């Protein structure tokens, strides 16, 4: 099976159960090699539950052994989901006890609020949004419990002022992403982190009430993740958007208003168009007319380039982020932290200040040309 055929099949899997999905079988029973590839892809895309549903509905044909293997993979994913949900409740309770405002994000939230059965949406880590002014306190608390931040900051308090967040690896080797905002770089810096704490809701996980963002913010988060996260968007995230679009749980005016405030309407548009191109789903009105007609402004076009162009890098996003930082003093603080990081940070990255400055200049020049 070619990579293209495998991607087509996993697309069929991801669409299972959507109103626009085909019900006809997608050809013959797959041979062992093709099924192994499909199993790996469905697992990596966090949709093993949809694969089982596709096999059971006959949309993809399988032998009994292949079906059993798909079921085993699904159970493995579900077992990890449970371990991660327990980590989420422990973390949430610990943050709440310390008086730290926080919200659970992504996998466990969408699994429980969007899907008919949470087992259809698997995940690989835990994401928690923390109030910017309590971010360092939260990370210190997790470190005191044995967590280890995966990356060093350019300077003290950089992440809590300007970053997306930090990945903390727990003593058990699980990944806990502590977010300040949804994404790194210019689109993340344009978000007002206080907006992310409006309109709170809760979900109950393992008998524990966990605070989560309301549906509009969750919708925007999955859109930011789909549009800017991975170079090829993950099917589970696209399916999250499709699940939102199949319901009426989003206040379109509010979503557009927030996206405008965050200079991120192009992100929303890209996420909607990507979802429609990968999955058989129509964007409902009035979002559809808006997505078809919206023309991104100069900032959005240039900012998108540092996320989606083939040579886009984290460094490019950091270097170009200065234009999205609000206020002259904050811009200067941002530039200073990136141009004059601590020596330990520099040793791990560029080697010398001169090399770092040259690289920053190149990235800035390229971004200005894109504008």
């Amino acid at each position, binding site marked *: 099976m070619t990579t293209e055929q495998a991607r087509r099949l996993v697309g069929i899997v991801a669409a299972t159960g959507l109103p626009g999905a085909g019900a006809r079988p997608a050809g013959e029973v797959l041979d062992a090699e093709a099924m192994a590839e499909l199993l790996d892809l469905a697992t990596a895309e966090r949709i093993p539950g949809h694969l*089982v549903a596709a096999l059971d509905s006959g949309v993809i044909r399988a032998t009994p052994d292949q079906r059993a293997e798909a*079921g085993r993979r699904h*159970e493995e994913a*579900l*077992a990890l989901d449970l*371990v991660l949900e*327990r980590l989420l409740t422990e973390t949430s309770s610990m943050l709440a006890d310390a008086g730290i405002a926080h919200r659970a994000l992504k996998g466990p939230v969408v699994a429980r609020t969007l899907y008919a059965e949470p087992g259809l949406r698997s995940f690989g880590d835990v994401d928690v949004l923390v109030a910017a002014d309590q971010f360092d306190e939260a990370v210190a608390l997790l470190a005191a419990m044995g967590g280890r931040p995966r990356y060093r900051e350019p300077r003290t308090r950089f992440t809590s002022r300007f970053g997306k967040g930090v990945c903390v690896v727990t003593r058990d080797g699980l990944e806990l992403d502590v977010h300040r905002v949804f994404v790194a770089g210019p689109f993340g810096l344009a978000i007002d982190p206080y907006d992310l704490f409006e309109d709170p809701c809760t979900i109950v*996980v393992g008998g524990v009430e966990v605070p989560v963002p309301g549906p509009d913010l969750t919708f925007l988060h999955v859109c930011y993740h789909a549009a800017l996260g991975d170079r090829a968007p993950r099917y589970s995230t696209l399916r999250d958007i499709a699940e939102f679009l199949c319901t009426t749980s989003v206040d379109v005016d509010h979503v557009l208003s927030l996206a405008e405030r965050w200079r991120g309407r192009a992100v929303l548009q890209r996420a909607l168009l990507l979802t429609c191109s990968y999955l058989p789903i129509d964007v409902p009105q009035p979002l559809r007319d808006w997505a078809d007609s919206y023309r991104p402004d100069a900032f959005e076009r240039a900012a998108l380039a540092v996320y989606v162009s083939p040579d886009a890098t984290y460094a490019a996003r950091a270097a170009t982020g200065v234009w999205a930082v609000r206020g002259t003093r904050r811009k200067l603080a941002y530039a200073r932290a990136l141009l004059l990081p601590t020596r330990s940070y520099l040793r791990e990255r560029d080697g010398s200040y001169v090399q770092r400055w040259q690289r920053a200049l190149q990235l800035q020049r390229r971004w200005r040309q894109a504008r």
Partner: protein
Amino acid sequence: MGGAGWGPDAAYAHESRVFVRRTADCVLLLGPKGSSPLALRGTALAAWNAFASPRSVNDVARELAASYDAPRERVSAEVASLVEALHGRGLLARRHGRDER
């Protein structure tokens, strides 16, 4: 079996702090402390489902023996063994009365 007052008439029910996922033929369970998730299927799954509300081992064994047309004594022993394991993992909680959850 651990715990004061244990007996086949003692009532048990799902612990509220359990993490659960279901598939077509099994349930995966994880308690609040230690150990990895446990998968139950077949009669063990049927027994788990029976403890959704407070029930005694005797009640559940009687029900399962009738459903599966199996010897009551053997089913009672298996249910008791399962309850002991699930209670030990923090998945089933002892209830003081049948109506108390």
